[in-house]
């Protein structure tokens, strides 16, 4: 057979020995911002992310405030309006975005690494982060868009379920409130609220920078200084209050006309840094976090045809994250699905994992770690997570070692200690007669 080999004509990308050995360098800027940097030279690009401890957990009495600040961050400074700012990035082919979650607000920039392209967009980004001034017309526009989004979310069963679940598992904690705000709270947010939030939380002592890409340490230091120089030093946000577990189990019903009922069952999990995270991660992986081979997918989907998607997930945060089992099931089969979900969890807690399942899960978790760092973007996310949560630089290797060292008894023990079926919240979003028929 004839074949043409093109490799000889082109330089082949040379490997650096794999992302697992990523050399993370860390320092602080003069005014106190934490910086993490990984040099990656294979592609002529640079990724920069600036994060602040300024997520919706900081909303206070104004649900939606943190999200609105990040949605308006790129929409105006004293010198420039939103379009002007956007074009100053676009002209150089750079992509910039701002977003927020419960713990974190972040701005991300991806640029070509050529200094002619990189320098002007870094300058622009620095001016915008420090100088965002929330022009009145932009505030009204974003408020309007937010309200429309909130209205639209009322016709989405999955959005309704998520909102009800967070509210129920977190109770009085700031995590209970929806990051996007509510139809009642968003109209009351004022420009002064936005400015005050920005002034308090978008400060150097409350910032973490992650930089990954084709530049030297010296250039990374210059960029980090540029991005933070305009920020007041300020102070780091106070730690969030601890999350209490729900006192008792509860079924929360949200009526919604549909052929399926959406189900979420769960409770708060553990905070980042808690040693129980590793055995819980392991247990969750074999319960419903491991894709098609996990217990829930097998029993719900493969064996019974009850759902397209059945999963469990475990997350952590600055405070307790969440443990959640979820599915969407035709209304007629809701009772059966609830039995399978709850029964599988209880069985795993009571009897512990089967030895072969434990080993299969272990091999998947430890064998798949290179997959998590196969791009500059995924590396950026990993590095930011290490910086923001003060994790060791070799967190992933340590993670793999911890998983290697756990046996079935350790997994079962952690699940028994931290997962409490008798205190879990069940959210049902479906037709009233269907969800009302489910016992409390």
């Amino acid at each position, binding site marked *: 057979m004839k074949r043409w080999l093109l490799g000889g004509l082109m330089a082949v990308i040379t490997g650096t020995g794999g992302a697992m050995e990523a050399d993370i360098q860390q320092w602080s800027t003069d005014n106190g911002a934490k910086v993490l940097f990984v040099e990656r030279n294979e592609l002529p690009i640079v990724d920069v992310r600036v994060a602040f401890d300024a997520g919706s957990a900081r909303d206070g009495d104004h649900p939606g405030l943190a999200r609105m600040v990040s949605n308006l961050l790129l929409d105006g400074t004293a010198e420039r309006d939103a379009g002007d700012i956007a074009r100053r990035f676009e002209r150089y082919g750079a992509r910039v975005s701002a977003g927020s979650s419960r713990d974190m607000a972040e701005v991300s920039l991806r640029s070509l690494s050529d200094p002619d392209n990189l320098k002007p967009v870094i300058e622009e980004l620095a001016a915008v982060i420090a100088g965002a001034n929330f022009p009145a017309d932009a505030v009204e526009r974003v408020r309007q868009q937010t309200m429309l989004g909130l209205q639209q979310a009322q016709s989405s069963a999955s959005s309704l379920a998520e909102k009800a679940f967070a509210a129920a598992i977190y109770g009085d904690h700031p995590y209970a409130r929806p990051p996007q705000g509510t139809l009642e709270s968003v109209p009351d947010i004022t420009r002064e609220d936005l400015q005050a939030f920005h002034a308090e939380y978008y400060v150097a002592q409350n910032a973490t920078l992650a930089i990954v890409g084709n530049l030297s340490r010296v250039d990374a230091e210059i960029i980090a200084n540029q991005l933070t120089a305009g920020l007041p030093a300020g102070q780091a946000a106070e730690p969030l209050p601890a999350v209490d577990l729900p006192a008792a189990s509860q079924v929360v019903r949200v009526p919604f006309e549909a052929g399926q009922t959406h189900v979420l069952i769960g409770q708060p999990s553990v905070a980042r840094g808690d040693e129980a995270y590793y055995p819980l991660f392991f247990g969750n992986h074999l319960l419903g976090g491991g894709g098609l081979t996990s217990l829930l997918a097998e029993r719900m989907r493969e064996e019974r045809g009850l759902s397209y998607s059945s999963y469990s997930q475990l997350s952590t945060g600055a405070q307790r994250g969440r443990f959640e089992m979820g599915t969407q099931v035709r209304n007629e089969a809701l009772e059966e699905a609830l039995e399978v979900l709850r029964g599988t969890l209880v069985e795993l807690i009571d009897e512990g994992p089967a030895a072969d399942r434990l080993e299969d899960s272990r091999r998947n978790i430890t064998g798949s770690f*290179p997959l998590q760092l196969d791009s500059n973007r995924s590396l950026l996310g990993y590095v930011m997570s290490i910086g923001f949560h003060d994790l060791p630089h070799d967190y992933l290797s340590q993670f793999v070692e911890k998983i290697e060292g756990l046996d079935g008894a350790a997994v079962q023990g952690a699940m028994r200690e931290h997962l409490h079926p008798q205190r879990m919240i069940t959210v049902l979003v479906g037709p009233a007669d269907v969800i009302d028929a489910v016992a409390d």
Partner: protein
Amino acid sequence: MAARNAIFALLPALMAAPAFADDGNNDDIGNITRFTLDNGMQVLVREDHRAPVVVSQVWYNVGSSYEARGVTGIAHMLEHMMFKGTDKFPEGEFSAIVSREGGRLNAFTSRDFTAYFEIMAADRLPIAFELESDRMVNLQLTDDALATEREVILEERRLRSDDRPEGRFGERFAAIANPGTGYAHPIIGWEDDIRSISLDDLQSWYAHWYSPSNATLVVAGAVQADAVYALAEEYFGDIPAREVPAVRDPSVFNAAGERRLVYRDAQARIPQLRLSYDVPSFATVEDRSDVYALLMLSAILDGGDGARLAEQLVRGNEVVAAAGAGYNPMARLEADFSLYGVPTDGQVDEVETALRAQIDALKTEQVADEELERARNQLLADHLFELDSVFYQAMQLGMLETTGAGWQTLQDYQAGISAVTAEDIRSVAERYLLPEHLAVGVMLPDEQGSDA
């Protein structure tokens, strides 16, 4: 688009691509090798040694647009059934093996293709090949497995389409935006068809389309191209080619005429507007410069927050809360140039007027140099940024191949975008973005019905 058939696919020497030279700007980042096995199977390898990871994808030239009335959804249903096991690897084993080896896997069905993938540590590639080559020929289809999977797919349909206002609207809009073509029905299929497709139907679908001569193997990651070729020959080379049916896609309307859908949805809370023009794809266009001009036009309208729709409509017109535009030329049949809009206060007609005025302006006035330059820089930078994802690199190759664009398109892209002039953009707007090519779809909340 010329019909793909076995004869066409079974000429390996002619199908192999000539060597190409890059233009020198990024000559160390595009490293693609193409082989053809004796049975007609195409093999595309893209080396990327940044991480010790490999993506392996098997693409079949068949998707929902190949389906006849009465069996809509069968391409997707067979995709589900492909996980139901063979003699050698019974149900569950495929996923279990990949999982044990630290891999991830899944599959996807679209209008023009059905594809299966594994992502693994690079040295595990033979495992992926062994599993994929086995199910290319040895799939066991049983009534029991079908009965269960049919229920799973009906749940998937409820989740994606039946229970969501946007899903219900989207299916209706596709039907008027692509009248008379294989793109008119949903990929997942109509509910009645999902309920009635038989085991025989699936057997024959599998026998017809799952031939190596109708497949492209795409491998991207930390591998050597010639080693991948040797492995591909070892695992796939002995699978006999079968004749693949000629694809019949009759030309329907040259210009279907302006169409309008007004859909009222009891659960929708806000009105939404969609516009879709029938425009050429890479596969159907006579001169590819038109495709590049349409891509630039799309970036002029919605390349970012500084582009026209955001500047002039979302920020410049109080009636429009959100607006966007998009064009994907990777389609076997005609492509859509689509726009959408959301009114701030329910005035959906005014949003339509504003969007159509944007299109008209592109026909009469050339875009400014600054806009042209900005759109070009964005598209070229995005093209480079895409190299960061190994998975997406493989996706691009597979999509280009199965939609008839050809994988070499990736190499032409930079030159194609660079050559577009302001007059080219004006010209494609004038020639293609015409009312007789346009479908307009409006979704209204039910309570608005009385005052409309």
